[in-house]
């Protein structure tokens, strides 16, 4: 029963945070809301019994991909007005919304850790099954994903190298 309430709470947070992210004028503010939305989706993954997917969601989506966004936004904003903008970002009304939303998620997570036998110890699909399936019937897809990542690596290196050499 409680899982269902948690699900609706996390779903509401995900929807609100995504809608706010899409409507912010400032890219960094939007990014903070987007991270909250990804965290909420990770909580939903936990609730539906996919802890492995939840961990990957946090590590890769909210970690690696969002850090890429932050890097690029920071690279583009190298200017004199950087300091003023930095000070403007520190105002409480900017980070209060994301903090509030992620605090709700944190409370849910704390409750789930405290009652760990509820949702975490009986995953619907364990990481072992995923791994066996990934390197069993889906091994061709893994190879294709590897090729795709290699192509992405080469492509982004090519695009970024020319920026670093001739830009500025």
């Amino acid at each position, binding site marked *: 029963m409680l899982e269902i309430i948690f699900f609706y709470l996390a*779903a509401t947070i*995900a929807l609100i945070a995504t809608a706010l992210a899409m409507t912010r004028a400032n890219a960094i503010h939007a990014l903070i809301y987007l991270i909250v939305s990804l965290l909420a989706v990770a909580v939903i993954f936990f609730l539906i019994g996919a802890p492995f997917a939840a961990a990957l969601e946090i590590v890769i989506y909210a970690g690696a991909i969002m850090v890429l966004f932050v890097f690029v936004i920071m690279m583009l904003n190298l200017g004199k007005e950087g300091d003023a903008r930095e000070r403007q970002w520190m105002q409480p009304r900017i980070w209060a919304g994301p903090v509030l939303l992620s605090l709700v998620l944190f409370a849910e997570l704390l409750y789930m850790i405290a009652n760990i036998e509820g949702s975490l110890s009986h995953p619907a699909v364990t990481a072992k099954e995923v791994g066996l399936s990934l390197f069993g019937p889906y091994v061709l897809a893994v190879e294709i994903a590897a090729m795709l990542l290699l192509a992405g*690596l080469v492509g982004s290196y090519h695009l970024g190298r020319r920026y670093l050499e001739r830009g500025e």
Partner: protein
Amino acid sequence: MDGLNIPLNHILLLSSLLFCIGMLGLMIRRNIIFILMSLEVMLNAAALAFVAAGAYWGQPDGQVVFLLILSVAAAEVAVGLGLVLQVQRRFKSLDMDSANRMRG
């Protein structure tokens, strides 16, 4: 079957709502960084639908596809952000409409 107490329709509804928000963002924003963010939201919504269906039927396939979506998103965002740097360098603006013509 036993792992999922939450109705599958509601998760799918959430996923489609997230997808629609992402598509709306894609259509109303002209800043290229926001366009990339909207693409991330849409990919994430699709991944949510896959994981929910996989959990509902107790099959690992949903999470396998989730992993593939994750790698697609990573590759897409790396190339996309490289393009953002190029657009910024060439047009001095992040507006997509400034990059609306091809050479030649």
